[in-house]
């Protein structure tokens, strides 16, 4: 295994810098009219985040409304299946609304209230972030509008209904690929237009500074809990942490508190869609190159003329041509190893978990689980692997049934 070498003077953890850069990635590539809002957001965030009263309120909401801390489950049957390292699952899927997204929306709605904003907007891919946003907007009594690609509305319809039940307005975005990228474009346009009284709760560690920093702050509780749970239950840190990466918020949340622990290997798993050779994938870090998109400099799926390419993944939450700038930084610094698995491998992993552990994972999280097929043979039984089970799979049931109602093990494509 590669050792982690840090060039002197460049810290892995003390990012971003004042300009919002993680190394050479990040920044604030947005029209001038958003600048006052981004400045205000940064100021309010920096002044509140260490304030005891704000911390208490956040903690209260996370405990009593969202259901933190989440368990660290020993996946005994899956461990036996592979016969190597012990596998633990961080159960973010047990949170209210069914995914880690609520960690961020609770934090951001508290910021929105502190800024006196009356209206909340958000983009959503799988609908998990949309539901988590609609939920906190309902709880705190703010108007809420969610942008969602028309194609995503079709494939994640139960979440559309949940958002509507929670009182949010769901806007179908029919431009472009009708998925997450276009929903984000529309949300940004809405924000440009109503910036004065609207807060945009971005759903991942993407977008212009300070969003990647703020979303990381609210998601890093995942890794902080894992540190505590590993220490008390295992008496040591895990050897491997595995998480799926679309925009990358559940992965950053898990990884960030471990960045300085050189013995902990970090693995991000992207969506290889129908296979890297097919050209139909969402493996941004594996196959993209740096570009400027959605307000940030980051790895991007693009053609040679700089036009953004259409990603593909069976998982709506990973179907994004960009990635959080901190991931681009961690890839470049080789602190995190990024791999990818296909739609089919993810689907198989979902069935494997359902039948061995009694847990139906979200398609996004199934990508992290699918990588165990590659990772486990390299491990031995005194090691520990922790997989972030970022969301539950109810929303994906149609896709699962469509894939193979009489699931059988097949060889890797």
């Amino acid at each position, binding site marked *: 295994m590669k050792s982690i070498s840090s060039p002197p003077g460049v810290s892995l953890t003390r990012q971003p810098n004042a*300009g919002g850069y993680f190394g050479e990635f990040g*920044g*604030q*590539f*947005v*029209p*001038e*009219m958003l*600048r*006052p809002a981004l400045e205000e957001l940064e100021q309010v965030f920096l002044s509140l985040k260490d304030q005891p009263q704000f911390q208490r309120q956040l903690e209260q909401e996370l405990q009593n409304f969202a259901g933190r801390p989440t368990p660290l489950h020993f996946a005994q049957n899956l461990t036996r299946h592979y016969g190597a390292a012990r596998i633990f699952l961080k159960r973010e899927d047990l949170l209210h609304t069914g995914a880690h997204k609520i960690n961020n929306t609770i934090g951001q709605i508290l910021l929105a209230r502190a800024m006196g904003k009356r209206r909340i907007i958000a983009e959503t891919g799988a609908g998990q972030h949309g539901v988590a946003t609609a939920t906190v907007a309902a709880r705190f009594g703010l108007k809420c509008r969610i942008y969602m690609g028309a194609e995503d509305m079709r494939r994640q319809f139960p979440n559309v209904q949940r958002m509507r039940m929670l009182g949010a307005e769901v806007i179908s975005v029919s*431009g*472009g690929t009708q998925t997450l*990228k276009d929903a984000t*474009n529309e949300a*940004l*346009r809405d924000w*440009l*237009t109503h*910036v*004065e009284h609207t807060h945009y709760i971005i759903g991942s560690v993407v977008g212009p500074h300070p969003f990647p920093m703020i979303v990381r702050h609210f998601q890093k509780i995942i890794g902080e809990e894992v540190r505590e749970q590993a220490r008390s239950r295992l008496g040591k840190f895990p050897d491997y942490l595995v998480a799926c990466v679309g925009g990358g918020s559940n992965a950053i949340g898990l990884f960030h508190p471990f960045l300085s622990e050189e013995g902990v290997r970090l693995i991000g798993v992207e969506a290889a869609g129908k296979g890297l050779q097919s050209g139909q994938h969402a493996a941004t870090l594996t196959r993209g190159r740096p*570009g*400027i*998109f*959605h*307000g940030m400099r980051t790895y*991007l799926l*693009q053609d*040679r*003329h*700089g*036009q*953004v390419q259409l990603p593909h993944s069976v998982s709506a939450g990973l179907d994004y041509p960009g990635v959080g700038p901190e991931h681009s930084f961690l890839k470049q610094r080789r602190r995190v190893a990024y791999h990818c698995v296909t739609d089919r491998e993810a689907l198989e992993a979902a069935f494997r978990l359902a039948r061995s552990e009694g847990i139906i994972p979200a398609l996004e999280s199934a990508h992290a689980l699918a990588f165990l097929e590659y990772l486990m043979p390299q491990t031995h039984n005194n090691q520990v692997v922790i997989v972030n089970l970022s969301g539950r799979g109810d929303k994906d049931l149609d896709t699962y049934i469509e894939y193979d109602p009489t699931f059988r093990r097949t060889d890797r494509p």
Partner: protein
Amino acid sequence: MSERLQRVLNNLRQSKTKALSVFTMAGYPTPEATLEIVPLLARAGVDFVELGIPFSDPIADGPIIQAAAHRALQHGTTLHRVLQMIEQLRRQTDIPLLLMGYANPVWQFGLEPFAETCRRLQVDGIILPDLPLEEYRPYQSLFQATDLDVIHLIAPNTPEHRIRTIDRHSTAFIYCTTHTGVTGRNPRSSARMTAFFSQLSNWVTHPVMIGFGVKSHRDFVYYSQFADGVIVGSAFLQFLQSLKPDDYPSAIPRFVRAIRHADPEGMEPKTPR
């Protein structure tokens, strides 16, 4: 700094004439049409032309320019192709030409080769709405070395101190948007906005052009009182949509006249509110 653009701006100030600039999307409705449209705009008396570089994800644009960019991309209008168009246009017209688009295609082209090509082809300026001052600063000397004016945007929510800073880093003119929002939207002018526009000239030393949703003679007159002129974009693209290429030679001058002088027949270009 572009001498051609400077000359035009100076002449306008000296003659106390308000500038009219038109934005059109390169490659819309076809690449051939662009080669015809730009010289017609020049002959119709437009003071300078912005040529849009199509991008797949134009976050600062409303539906009309989004659709035009999409169409232009379907015709294969890459930045390379746009620069080829400029080369052909420069044989026909001496009007100041500015490119307007998003940062990524320019970055993928390579900043140095881009600035160098612009100098060779006599492009006068570049407007990149997603490149705010802070992200531009590291490249400022590169642009300045090639006489390419980088036009910065300000909006009615930009604070005075920041407008003054942007003014200091500007070369040709400042692009002020009518409102906070995307292109093509019809702004409702409020007392607060009027107050903002009235103050603007006290804060800047460079000429100011106002754009985003400017679509009629009335808009031209209204916004010109606060600035050196206006930029018309979405309204022009929507007008083009209604035309056949055969109509261009008569219709485009009519459009320009209607904006500048109020059309005698009361034929202001119709655009939905």
